[in-house]
């Protein structure tokens, strides 16, 4: 009798316990579910806002630029070589000099900055003794926070006389001058991102290469750098973004003359780096402040901004494609 009673009691207790467990279980899950839900929505909202702002900028550019595109035609902007937007007779809206100026200055900067940056990154990540690395890495990062106007000033007073002297020019403010100083600006981005990605290559790969008899240089060349390629490409692309969007430095270093920066050499048309150029960004900065609001000139400056946007967009798209292709190749997905 008492045994049965005890059994009942125990059973009751077990039931109670079950109920309690059930309750706490549902409570907890309710709480964490709500929190999860809210956090998820929060991320969604922030992400959406970022995309929304981007689209808003694009919309604004198109709306303000559409007047000029309708009146002048987009081909005139892309292929025309004359830029006289405020001239009453024979106005020209050719932005090709600026497009070439931007592309030349940026390409020139990258031609200098890519090998320089990648070799520095390899040196910091793989070769430098710890002491040197501890000095070099922060030094590179300080370079990144230099105000662009300071670098522009250096280009103006130090670099341009050197360029003028070396090439026998009357004016040292050229595409070359701007390229050199821009390369210095793109350098920290390229170095720092490349170095991170080289560092993150698993040490297993290096060990395997050494164990097969590869030297340090062979290992860097054939294993480490290829494995870090996607990060290096990303670094270069961000460096490109920095260079193509940079305004103040090129404004001070490139001379800003509106002309076609090309030259004929043995019958071939080549870009002329020893002439003064005006970039897309510089043109907006120079003319943007005193253009009559709502005029055709005003609208055409937005077209120039739109061209800049498209160039950056395309480069970033290519970079993304390259990176994801590389990743697919690595993981075989």
């Amino acid at each position: 009798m008492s045994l049965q009673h005890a059994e009942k009691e125990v059973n009751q207790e077990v039931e109670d316990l079950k109920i309690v467990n059930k309750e706490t279980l549902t409570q907890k899950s309710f709480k964490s579910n709500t929190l999860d839900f809210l956090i998820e929505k929060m991320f969604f909202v922030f992400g959406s806002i970022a995309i929304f702002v981007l689209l808003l900028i694009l919309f604004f550019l198109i709306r303000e630029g559409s007047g000029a595109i309708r009146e002048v035609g987009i081909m005139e902007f892309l292929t025309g070589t004359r830029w006289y937007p405020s001239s009453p007779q024979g106005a020209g809206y050719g932005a090709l000099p600026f497009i070439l100026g931007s592309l030349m200055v940026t390409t020139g900067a990258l031609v200098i900055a890519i090998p320089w940056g990648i070799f520095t990154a390899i040196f910091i990540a793989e070769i430098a003794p710890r002491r040197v690395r501890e000095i070099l890495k922060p030094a590179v990062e300080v370079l990144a926070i230099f105000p662009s106007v300071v670098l522009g000033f250096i280009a103006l007073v130090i670099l341009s006389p050197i360029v003028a002297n070396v090439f026998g020019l009357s004016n040292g403010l050229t595409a070359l001058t701007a390229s050199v100083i821009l390369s210095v600006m793109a350098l920290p981005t390229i170095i720092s991102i490349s170095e991170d990605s080289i560092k993150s290559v698993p040490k297993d790969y290096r060990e395997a290469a050494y164990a097969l008899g590869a030297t340090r240089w062979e290992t860097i060349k054939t294993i480490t750098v290829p494995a870090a390629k996607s990060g290096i490409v990303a670094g270069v692309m961000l460096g490109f973004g920095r260079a193509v969007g940079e305004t103040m430095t090129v404004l001070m270093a490139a001379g800003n003359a509106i002309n076609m920066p090309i030259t004929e050499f043995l019958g071939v048309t080549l870009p002329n780096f020893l002439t003064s150029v005006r970039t897309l960004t510089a043109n907006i900065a120079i003319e943007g402040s005193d253009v009559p609001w709502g005029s055709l000139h005003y609208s055409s400056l937005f077209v120039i901004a739109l061209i800049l946007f498209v160039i950056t967009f395309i480069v970033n798209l290519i970079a993304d494609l390259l990176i994801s292709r590389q990743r697919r190749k690595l993981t075989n997905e």
Partner: protein
Amino acid sequence: MSAIQTVVKEKQKLSLDKDVQEESIISAKGLNLWYGNDQALKNINLEIPEKQVTAIIGPSGCGKSTFLKTVNRMVELVPIVKINGNIDYHGVNIFDSKVNLVELRSSVGMVFQKPNPFPKSIFDNIAFGPRVHGIKKKAELTKIVEKSLRASGLWDEVKDRLGESALGLSGGQQQRLCIARCLAVEPEVILMDEPTSALDPKSTLKVEELIQELKEKYSIIIVTHNMQQAARISDKTAFFLNGEVVEFDNTDKIFSNPTDKRTEDYITGRFG
């Protein structure tokens, strides 16, 4: 004791003596190694026999992996390492300043604990070593790749996708690929650092069978945590403890009748 018994005993003794005197390919003599101030190897004397499997067992941190990495001088990648003593390979001390590291590492290959194929195609993984050693011709490389993959028993599984990334293979296949990669530079000695510890039992079996086949041509030193594995595949076993060689003998002897009490304790699972 009958005369016959005496003769048998004598013969056994002789064959034992012969075992001891057999050709050794690598011999460590009075090898000491320090990481900074911590001594990881203490007066190691080992004679590694040619074309046999030598297992190195012992608890974690006993110096077995360190010893293995010393044989191809990979241990020197750690900047604070100090070494004295000799490891003779073909009668040359590998620490001699005249020794060419590239040559040493191409005749003493290594397979690592975690399969570590390069993020390249299967073909390029195998061809990496030969390319480093100056073989450029595609036809020759193709031949080496096939030969190495056949030797590691991977050929039939991958022959149709040599151009695909090696990272798409399973863990066991990756490890056999790493063995093939090591064979492609035609080593004499293969060092294996717990080559099956990251693999499932089926893949482990395949790798163990492969090791049995490879010892026809290669001298193998294998570090293992798994004592059954050492008993299964090795001819000789060295028991390491706290940086010292406690006992080094035929595997049968070590696992059936160890001389040292500590060896017995370890193999019967009393510690480690």
